[in-house]
């Protein structure tokens, strides 16, 4: 045994450490360097799910029923798989509308109904009381086991234990009050508390793993040894099997427990508090959604070994299996380990009580007491001062009340039940919130009356089939109610309602309550019309991901005054806080002073949301309504406002699209403009080139004719020579003008074409024949290489082709050395078309100039050694070839001659027709 003073001292020391952690957490939060802004801390705070029930009760349950302790943790595993979908939506809704409790969530969703909020709060309080009792029982029993000398029987439930439990309850209340209600926050966030809870989660995990390792490796020789001994024992072996020997495996109960835990892990007030309200960043959910199940797995790893180990060591029925974690180390003389394990259990229990009591006290204050107070005329008119102190006081009293209720339940029913059974009663109560909550998040047609009816019927059935029997079994009610049914009617037997048999009491209760709850919620919702406010809230909740802050519809119309709203806020939040909130709001609107804020629907909504954080949605609604002149909204108004909001959204979207397309058009215009500019420059270049080309022959014609005009006595020979030059230059001029015209015509599409089926061999032959005289004169060689086989005709204009050939051949003649020049013409035929190549042995064209030769007035080479020519021949030739769907290109290397080729395709009829049409245009 350990002396009680040591146990109490250790407990207080531990609590002091918790305070230090919480103080540190709050301090860092105030400095803006939150220590809880991490997915790991978030996941650890979720582990507040593991209470004294897990810590002590799981082992007890495993010792009685084997693996049946597990569904309570498999449910959360399954639920967390969907956390990223469901919980994230819940967090988004709660953050957007400043929702701080489940009661607020449900009431807000169904038209800010105060009645719903009160009902939910009531269910929570009644439902959670057994759970609080469980924690008290665990701590006081653990304390009793630690301080009772070995071998002596545990003191029976007498005055001593009863009193110590009361002290524990009072101490926990004081502790929670100091933790959770030191100041009022509109978001109800408690960073210090979350830090402490995360710390507690580490302590309880380490302590439980420590005792597990002690049992497996200290008491036994490892896992193998433990299970070998257990399997050898005929009474223990069934615990390790699914069938548990003769008994049929109760699949419905297994499923029911899993479902129950799945719902509880989200809808228990403390889980909602740490998962939704205390969430710092919804992205933390990503990691937490798998770290939390991992935590559950670790803390459950040694449950079965400890249970089996305890049974093997003590023998069945000799020690309370709920407290094997304490009695096993004690029996082996490991008192310090037992003390550490007790502190771990204390962690589990205090963590649960703190968070649960804070969450429930917020609900009691905001949704039960405040609406009542505010409605009383006297209070409403007199309480004009600051109400923040009052709010905190109500919460403190609520915390104390909840713990005292827990103590009362412990005195009434506590000793008759194992820990787990007590906990399951609470689980089944909060499961009643699931239809209204989940339905509210995903089903727009779910309405207030449906939710109200469902909750009422579900809660009534829970009370009748689960809570009352628990009291009967504790001997506080007549057992006849159980065995005979209410008023002696057999079909009203609470554990076999309407004669439903074959289910254990929990599955039975869960089935009836949830079935009736869901049924009523759905049917009533489908057969009643929602009010305007319900319909609007339904839209806001279900579509929360589809709206952004700027396009939130505000379902309010009427007249308000800024001063009234300011006074109202000051009453509940204090003057400093109000000033800060309004300044923030003004800044967001781009205003300098808070007094310039327009008193419109947005402001009313803002004030109401802020107030909702402090006093609950229903009360906030009522208070705001009392200071502004409201116009009643009907369904048409809701639809209209929604329409406007969606129009606004569509409008902003359209605006965005417009500006995008404008941007695109601008850039297109810019590109077009640049193209135009370069075209303009090209035209200028073209013009200057043309005029330059025209000026040269004109100048020489003028010079020679002037000379002849001035000199009457010029000799006939000289005159003749001059006239020949003039005629030559005039011819060149004419050629140039013709070519420019030709070029312009082709480019503008006005050229005349006379297409027919052309024998390309004969055209090339003609061209070679007609120019061969000139080649011969200059001592150049010209050879045509064409195959012997005849080539199928090609659709083209023979005169134009002739023009191309002559151009290529005369060009080649200019660039080959004189004499010794050699030009070869090749014709190659292919199914798709004919290629004609003109190869010379000139000095070739550099790579970078190759494409330029096809540009107008561009000739390769230096200006000085340019041969005679207009610089339009190649561009025109290329245009002609391209007109027939072909292409012209150049292959050349400096010093290795040049090879100009063009390819003419054999077109199909459609393509020919296209060309013909183009020609005729």
């Amino acid at each position, binding site marked *: 045994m350990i002396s009680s003073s040591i146990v109490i001292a250790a407990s207080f020391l531990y609590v002091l450490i918790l305070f230090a952690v919480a103080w540190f957490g709050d301090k860092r939060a105030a400095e803006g360097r939150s220590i809880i802004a991490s997915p790991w801390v978030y996941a650890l705070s979720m582990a507040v799910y593991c209470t004294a029930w897990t810590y002590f009760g799981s082992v007890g349950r495993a010792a009685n029923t084997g*693996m049946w302790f597990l569904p309570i943790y498999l449910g959360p595993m399954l639920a967390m*798989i*969907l956390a990223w*979908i469901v919980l994230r939506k819940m967090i988004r809704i709660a953050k957007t509308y400043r929702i701080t409790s489940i009661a607020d969530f449900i009431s807000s969703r169904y038209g800010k109904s105060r009645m719903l909020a009160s009902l939910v709060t009531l269910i929570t309080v009644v439902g959670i009381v057994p759970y609080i009792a469980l924690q008290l029982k665990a701590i006081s029993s653990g304390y009793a086991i630690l301080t009772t000398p070995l071998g002596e029987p545990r003191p029976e439930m007498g005055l001593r234990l009863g009193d110590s439990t009361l002290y524990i309850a009072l101490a926990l209340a004081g502790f929670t009050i100091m933790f959770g209600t030191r100041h009022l926050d509109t978001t109800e966030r408690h960073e210090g508390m979350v830090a402490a809870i995360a710390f507690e989660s580490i302590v309880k995990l380490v302590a439980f793993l420590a005792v597990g390792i002690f049992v497996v490796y200290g008491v036994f020789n490892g896992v193998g040894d433990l*299970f070998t001994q257990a399997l050898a024992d005929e009474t223990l072996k069934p615990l390790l*099997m*699914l069938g548990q020997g003769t008994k049929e*495996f109760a699949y419905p109960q297994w499923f029911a427990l899993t479902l129950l835990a799945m719902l509880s892990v989200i809808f228990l007030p403390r889980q909602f508090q740490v998962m939704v309200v205390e969430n710092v960043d919804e992205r933390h959910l990503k*990691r937490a959604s798998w770290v939390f199940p991992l935590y559950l797995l670790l803390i459950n790893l040694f449950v079965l070994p400890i249970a089996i180990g305890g049974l093997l060591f003590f023998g069945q029925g000799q020690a309370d299996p709920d407290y094997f974690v304490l009695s096993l180390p004690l029996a082996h003389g490991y008192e310090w380990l037992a003390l550490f394990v007790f502190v771990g259990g204390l962690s589990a229990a205090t963590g649960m009580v703190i968070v649960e009591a804070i969450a429930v006290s917020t609900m009691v204050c905001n949704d039960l007491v405040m609406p009542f107070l505010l409605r009383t005329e006297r209070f409403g008119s007199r309480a004009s001062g600051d109400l923040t102190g009052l709010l905190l006081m109500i919460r403190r009293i609520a915390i104390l009340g909840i713990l005292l209720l827990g103590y009362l339940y412990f005195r009434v029913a506590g000793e008759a039940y194992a820990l787990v059974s007590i906990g399951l009663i609470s689980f089944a109560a909060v499961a009643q919130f699931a239809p209204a909550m989940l339905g509210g998040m995903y089903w727009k047609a779910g309405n207030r009356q449906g939710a109200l009816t469902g909750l009422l019927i579900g809660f009534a059935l829970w009370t009748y089939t689960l809570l009352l029997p628990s009291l009967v079994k504790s001997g506080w009610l007549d057992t006849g109610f159980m065995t005979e049914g209410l008023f002696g009617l057999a079909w009203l037997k609470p554990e076999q309602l309407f004669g439903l048999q074959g289910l254990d009491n929990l599955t039975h209760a869960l089935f009836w309550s949830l079935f009736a709850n869901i049924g009523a919620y759905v049917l009533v919702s489908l057969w009643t019309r929602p009010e305007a406010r319900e319909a609007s809230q339904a839209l806001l909740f279900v579509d929360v991901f589809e709206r952004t802050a700027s396009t939130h519809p505000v379902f309010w119309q009427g007249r308000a005054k800024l001063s009234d709203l300011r006074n109202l806020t000051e009453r509940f939040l204090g003057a400093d806080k109000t000033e800060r909130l309004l300044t923030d709001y003004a800044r967001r609107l781009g205003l300098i002073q808070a007094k310039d804020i327009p008193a419109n629907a947005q402001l009313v909504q803002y004030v109401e949301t802020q107030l909702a954080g402090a006093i609950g949605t229903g009360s906030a609604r009522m208070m705001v309504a009392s200071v502004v002149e409201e116009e009643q909204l009907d369904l048409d108004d809701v639809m209209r406002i929604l329409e406007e909001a969606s129009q606004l959204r569509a409008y902003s979207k359209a605006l965005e699209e417009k500006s995008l397309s404008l941007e695109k058009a601008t850039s297109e215009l810019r590109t077009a403009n640049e193209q135009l500019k370069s075209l303009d420059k090209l035209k200028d270049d073209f013009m200057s080139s043309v005029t330059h080309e025209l000026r040269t022959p004109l100048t020489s014609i003028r010079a020679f004719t002037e000379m002849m005009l001035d000199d009457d006595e010029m000799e006939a020979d000289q005159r003749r020579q001059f006239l020949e030059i003039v005629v030559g230059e005039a011819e060149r001029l004419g050629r140039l003008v013709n070519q420019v015209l030709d070029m312009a015509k082709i480019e503008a599409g006005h050229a005349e074409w006379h297409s027919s089926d052309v024998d390309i061999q004969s055209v090339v032959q003609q061209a070679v024949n007609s120019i061969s005289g000139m080649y011969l004169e200059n001592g150049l060689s010209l050879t045509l290489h064409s195959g012997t086989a005849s080539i199928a005709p090609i659709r083209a204009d023979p005169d134009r082709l002739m023009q191309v050939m002559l151009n290529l051949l005369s060009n080649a003649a200019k660039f080959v050395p004189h004499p010794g020049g050699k030009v070869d013409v090749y014709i190659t035929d292919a199914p798709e078309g004919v290629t004609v190549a003109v190869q010379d042995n000139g000095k070739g064209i550099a790579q970078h100039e190759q494409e330029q030769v096809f540009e107008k007035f561009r000739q390769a080479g230096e200006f000085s050694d340019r041969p005679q020519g207009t610089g339009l021949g190649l561009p025109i030739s290329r245009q002609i070839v391209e007109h027939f769907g072909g292409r012209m290109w150049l292959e050349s290397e400096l010093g290795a001659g040049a090879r100009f080729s063009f390819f003419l395709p054999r077109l199909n009829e459609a393509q020919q027709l296209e060309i013909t049409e183009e020609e005729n245009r």
Partner: protein
Amino acid sequence: MLRGMTSARLIALFLFGCALLNFPLLALWDKDATILGVPLFPAALFIIWAGMIAVLAWLMETDER
């Protein structure tokens, strides 16, 4: 698109998990055998559980959007 896929995958994992942990698949482990000294039924439950955590962790940590 990927977010939609993540949601669909999560739902699939959830349904698969529900099936694995209920009738009749649970009956598969009702055998007189041990894994590393641990009786089959408890071992199977913890292994399925660990597997689900692993898949969930993989789903949640790989998709960065």
